[in-house]
């Protein structure tokens, strides 16, 4: 990324910020889809049962903790990779 000059870096920063809202929305949509898929499989009723609701709560919390942990490791590994490339 160091090939970009200051003005280009500012423009790039704008692009990054534009994408962040989209990323958050995608995370949210994935969360809903995943927990719906894993927790709701009985269509003899028309609204969520207590069991399904509990499952959805736990699933969504767990998924957020999951992506948080993967995100931390991803950044660590990415930093390591960049370092290795520069030391070559």
């Amino acid at each position, binding site marked *: 990324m160091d090939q970009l000059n200051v003005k280009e870096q500012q423009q790039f920063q704008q692009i990054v910020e*534009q994408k962040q*809202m*989209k990323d958050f*929305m*995608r995370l*949210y*949509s994935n*969360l*809903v*889809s995943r*927990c*719906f*898929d894993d*927790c*709701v*499989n009985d*269509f003899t*009723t*028309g*609204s*969520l049962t207590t069991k*399904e*609701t509990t499952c*959805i*709560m736990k699933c*969504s*919390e767990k998924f*957020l903790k999951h*992506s*948080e942990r993967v*995100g931390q490791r991803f950044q660590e590994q990415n930093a390591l990779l960049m370092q290795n490339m520069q030391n070559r």
Partner: protein
Amino acid sequence: MFGLGGAPQVTSDQKLQAAEAELDMVTGMFNSLVEQCHAKCINKSYGESDISKQEALCLDRCVAKYFETNVQVGEHMQKMGQSGQFMGRQ
């Protein structure tokens, strides 16, 4: 769909981008709903080209339960966001 698009923004461009992002999310949700309710409700042997009564009932409930799930997850995330458990740290 979630009342987004009205944060303290200034330029037309940003408002339009927020509205477009929201549209993309609603479209994405619809596409995901079509896929998931197909997987959960539709018989894939294709003996018939019509949707059976049973499949139709399943689809209606599938959509209703998906929206309920959406609301539940939204409220839960807000609660967690306010308690500062997530967001920003990620």
